């Protein structure tokens, strides 16, 4: 019988497993994905989608208009993410407080947890000489138009830029262990030191017996059961919510599955006469940091996409497709990330398959359209000959579904991270986000996980 079983190893599960392991707790970590490392991460874009992502690359909403990305591997989605780590501002926390009734959602209350996480990871804030041509054109144009921008902060230790490394490769897992995924940042050394982890093990059902919890799982198709005094669900917005839904908790928890948001992103490309090579070097160093846009509910990110993803962003094939791809190295790219309403719902159908309802509300549309218009303006001012706006939207920040709040009719998890009504089931991952913060979510996921870790270690007198 374990004291704690932690399910999932993304920014939340990785942090909690690390803290409990260091504190000497009797824990087991279960992860649906494989254990990979810098030598075994996929080396091609197509292999990355097939091997690392749930759904073989992408999952869709029921209307098939929005795609969602999340991974299944030790380290969770932090293996493929850009690891841009931002603290929330007062706007985000005030909106969380208003929605959830949780009064410790403040920068002051979370400061020490942010500090602990930031101290544990290698962080780097980009500088002017690290911008590639895509970023230079973006910032010059923003300056002309009067849009404020800033340098991004990324979790990374040594990306070997001076030796010509291209960070786009790390979208399939960092082959240098530089990116501070929850694997490189927390779990790699713990696993080497004997952390008890079972991989390729998907939890399918949770049975709460009062003082203990039984987990039913499939390990490479083989059924297994595990017992613990406590469990920590860290499967992410889809994973955690799905486990609770398919275990029948919806009856007691009517809000289960609701309040899903995802910061939908829409990319636009600008075509230039000169060679840009936007995929080279650090391909994401700057973004809009404009209070005006923050208030309007969207931000602009200076990004790029590898070839298959870039091709996927436009439905038209044949000559149109070939025109875009022929000009791949002469394109710049900006995306608008919308701070969307939490109107989505995560459900499970009678075959146990996830179904996601994600209405794109009138407010979401307005924000997207305004953002797109501004992007077209920026690209044209940069000198783009032509602008290609992708009709597709992708959700990379999956949030909500098992949201935190004081009212069990409107939320799933209480302010002490317990599933309402269950003293031994905890959640501190992206599923507890009450609404979309409009800010990169990972650092705050880790800060919340840190808070829960401190709470669990404290409650057990250091374990």
């Amino acid at each position, binding site marked *: 019988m374990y004291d704690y079983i932690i399910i999932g190893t993304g920014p939340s599960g990785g942090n909690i497993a690390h803290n409990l392991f260091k504190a000497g707790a009797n824990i087991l970590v279960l992860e649906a994905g494989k254990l990979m490392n810098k030598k075994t991460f996929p080396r091609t874009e197509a292999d990355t989608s097939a091997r690392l992502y749930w759904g073989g690359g992408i999952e869709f909403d029921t209307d098939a208009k929005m795609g969602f990305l999340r991974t299944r591997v030790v380290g969770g989605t932090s293996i493929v993410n850009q690891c841009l780590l931002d603290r929330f501002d007062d706007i985000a926390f005030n909106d969380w407080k208003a929605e959830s009734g949780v009064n410790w959602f403040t920068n002051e209350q979370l400061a020490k947890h942010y500090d602990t996480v930031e101290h544990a990871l290698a962080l780097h804030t980009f500088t002017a000489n690290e911008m590639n041509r895509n970023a230079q054109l973006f910032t010059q144009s923003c300056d002309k138009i009067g849009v404020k921008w800033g340098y991004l902060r990324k979790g990374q230790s040594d990306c070997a830029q001076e030796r010509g490394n291209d960070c786009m490769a790390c979208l399939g897992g960092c082959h240098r262990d530089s990116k501070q995924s929850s694997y490189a940042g927390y779990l790699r050394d713990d696993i080497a030191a004997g952390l008890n982890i079972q991989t390729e093990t998907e939890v399918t059902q949770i049975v709460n017996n009062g003082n203990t919890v039984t987990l039913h799982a499939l390990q490479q198709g083989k059924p297994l059961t595990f017992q613990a005094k406590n469990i920590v669900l860290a499967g992410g917005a889809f994973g955690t919510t799905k486990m609770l839904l398919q275990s029948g908790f919806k009856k007691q928890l009517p809000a289960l599955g609701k309040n899903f948001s995802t910061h939908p992103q829409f990319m636009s490309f600008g075509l230039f006469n000169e060679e840009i090579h936007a*995929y080279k070097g650090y391909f994401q160093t700057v973004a809009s940091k404009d209070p005006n846009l923050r208030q309007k509910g969207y931000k602009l990110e200076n990004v790029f996409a590898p070839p298959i993803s870039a091709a996927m962003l436009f439905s038209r094939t044949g000559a149109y497709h070939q025109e875009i791809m022929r000009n791949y190295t002469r394109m710049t790219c900006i995306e608008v990330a919308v701070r969307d309403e939490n109107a989505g719902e995560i459900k499970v159908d009678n075959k146990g398959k996830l179904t996601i309802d994600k209405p794109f509300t009138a407010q979401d549309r307005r924000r997207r359209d305004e953002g797109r218009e501004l992007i077209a303006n920026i690209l044209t001012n940069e000198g783009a000959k032509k602008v290609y706006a992708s009709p597709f939207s992708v959700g990379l920040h999956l949030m909500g579904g098992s949201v935190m709040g004081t009212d069990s009719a409107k939320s799933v998890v209480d302010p002490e991270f317990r599933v309402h009504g269950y003293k031994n089931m905890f959640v501190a991952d992206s599923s507890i986000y009450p609404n979309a913060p409009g800010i990169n979510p990972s650092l705050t996921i880790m800060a919340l996980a840190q808070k829960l870790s401190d709470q669990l270690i404290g409650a057990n007198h250091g374990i």
Partner: protein
Amino acid sequence: MASNYLSNSALKAINRIGDMMIPRNGEFPSFSEVGGIAYIDDLVSYAPPADIKDLNLLLTILAFMPNFVLRWLLNRMENSMESSGPLAPIFRMLDVGLRGLIFSCYYTEKIPASYTGKKPLDIIGFDLTRVED
């Protein structure tokens, strides 16, 4: 060319649809000329068995469609983002699924040695540098 997961008709359908989506044009070779489909098992083997079964069925149906029907279908798929109605989500899903397969087998480092032309990734100028210690 054979697959452990997809039938011969399914593979034929991928090549036919691939050539409609990416015909030979200027410096671009056609989809089937490149032959990246030889490595399709690397992608499909990670999918759940039920999904592979559905894919085989779908591709087998498409394999038997005459060219003009297939072209009509691709056209519906291409315009599906703007369309509404009960079938629109199905066309959108098909669009992303098929384009995903085709582009993954075309913009790839894994191309059989029998293809001696310029690789699509070289044509578009994609040359990623990985510095590994």
